[in-house]
């Protein structure tokens, strides 16, 4: 069937593509999308030229929810709202290759180098219809609205806690570095998912006001910050190193630091103190379907959902390519905690 999509062909240049696609399992109409920093990097061309050349043309956006148009196997009903999981496990014949991750069950699908991730090495959700495998779709409970578009970010938070084996454990207190959207969501997941008291470190007083469920601190004054057994870095960029070093200073000996931010360059961190304190550092950014399911569970909690809803700064109906450009321009200029989300209409 013929399906339209928007694809980036070079930085700041989108084209309309019309493709003949073959149905796999479930046809889903992407409905609400959110643009993330990785999409903006492609849009602005902030990746190596050769990387961009290899990936383009490509449909962007990997945070999205959709509506089932048709399911060959009738697991989903037409019209059913679903979260679309952007990663897809590679077909594996069971033979171990040199980069096989099957032995590490905590890594799962998303760490296999042959797996695909939408808007990275496979087309994203900026399409009229998308072919999805049943395993990568989750029904959205009725009590959850378009805020489910943040499931991907919430799932990354859930994944961070899973990777540190924190689910089901009693965790008194967690410290989170980062006053951006990822810090906000991870802090929420820690608070409502684990019942932990959360400390949040940031640099922007206005943004920190949004963290009204947590104790907040400016990073230049952490004298009152209590030590915790678990620290999470959700800063990324060039400030990653400072955040990680502060976490190293404030975590208990034997504690865990979860790294969730993508550093701009190689981050110089205090490895001497890591050794002295016997710390564990866990890298976690890639979630899987189980983490998405956990994200939906959390979204069913009223208070959690209301605080996620605050992140939606508006809904832009994108029914032509000009509006699609506008959405990317606005997202690339935005410095706020939340996002405007896209209602995609082809």
């Amino acid at each position, binding site marked *: *069937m*013929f*399906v*339209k999509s928007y694809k980036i062909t070079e930085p700041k240049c989108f084209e309309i*593509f*019309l*493709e*003949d*696609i*073959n*149905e796999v399992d479930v*046809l889903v*109409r992407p409905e609400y999308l959110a643009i993330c920093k990785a999409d903006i990097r492609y849009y602005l061309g902030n990746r190596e030229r050769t990387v961009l050349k290899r990936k383009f043309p490509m449909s962007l956006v990997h945070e999205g929810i959709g*509506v*089932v*148009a*048709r399911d*060959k196997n009738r697991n989903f009903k*037409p*019209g059913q709202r679903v979260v679309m999981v952007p990663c897809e496990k590679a077909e594996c014949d069971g033979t171990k290759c040199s980069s096989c991750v099957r032995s590490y069950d905590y890594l799962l699908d998303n760490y296999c180098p042959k797996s695909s991730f939408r808007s990275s090495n496979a*087309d994203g959700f900026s399409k*009229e*219809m998308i072919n999805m495998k049943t395993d990568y779709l989750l029904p959205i409970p009725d009590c959850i609205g378009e805020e489910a578009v943040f499931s991907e970010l919430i799932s990354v938070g859930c994944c961070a806690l899973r990777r540190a084996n924190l689910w089901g454990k009693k965790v008194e207190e967690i410290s989170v570095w980062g006053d951006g959207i990822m810090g906000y969501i991870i802090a929420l997941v820690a608070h409502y998912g684990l019942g932990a008291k959360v400390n949040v470190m940031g640099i922007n007083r206005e943004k920190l006001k949004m963290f009204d469920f947590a104790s907040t601190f400016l990073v230049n004054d952490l004298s009152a910050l209590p030590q915790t057994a678990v620290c999470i870095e959700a800063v990324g960029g060039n400030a990653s190193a400072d955040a990680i070093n502060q976490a190293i200073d404030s975590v208990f000996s034997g504690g865990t630091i979860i790294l969730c931010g993508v550093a701009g360059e190689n981050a110089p961190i205090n490895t001497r103190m890591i050794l002295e304190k016997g710390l564990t550092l866990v890298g976690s950014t890639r979630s899987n379907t189980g983490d998405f399911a956990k994200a939906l569970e959390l979204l069913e909690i009223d208070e959690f959902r209301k605080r996620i809803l605050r992140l939606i700064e508006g809904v832009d109906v994108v*029914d032509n390519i000009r509006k699609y450009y506008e959405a990317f321009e606005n997202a690339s200029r935005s410095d706020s905690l939340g996002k405007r989300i896209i209602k995609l*209409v*082809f």
Partner: protein
Amino acid sequence: MNIAVILAGGTGSRMGMVDRPKQFIEIYGKPVVIHTIEAFEINEKIDAICVICTKEWQEDLSIWIKEYDIRKVRWIGNAGRTRQESSLNALDAIKDDATGDDIIIIHDSARPLISQRIINENIEKATQFGACDTVIPAQDTVIRSLDGEHLDSIPARHELYLGQTPQSFKYSIVRKAYDDYFSKPENERPVMTDDCGLVLASGVEIGMAMGDKLNMKMTTMEDLLLIKSIIRTSR
């Protein structure tokens, strides 16, 4: 209930092909009419589909419907001698199942690039107004000539739109318009090229849904070439 009617009864004489009408030509291994039906099949607001085609192609059509796992086609009706007769046959085919407020979305089978937005906007506008035409603003200046040799007038472009399909109606409205039209003796029926003309003649207000340049009609071989050239294979 929202019922799509796909008119596939044309002979496609302008295509020049002798063995099949244009709607049965294959594009990338699939007949045009199936591409068109699929656009309605995957729209969650469409409940059922009626396809109108000539008797000699109905068996092929049934085979394709099975082959491509099309599930919403509930009726296959006979094509008439004219577009109006084909539409009437469709309305007769669905009459036992359709109620007055059901929306009937009538579409040319030779427009396979219809978007989901156009279908949805048709349903919305037909529900609101009772009738809806799909249009795009005229971008070129339109010239009126009565004899084909001399220019008579240049209508104001901002008032002009080009009609596409679908054209959508509440069943009661389109039914009445067709019954009135066919109650007249054949030689007294005005010449109509589409369903909206007929409904407009019956005094019904018709809303407009915005079409799309890509929702082009495959009429000539050049159109087929254009359609094939803008479709890319997915990766």
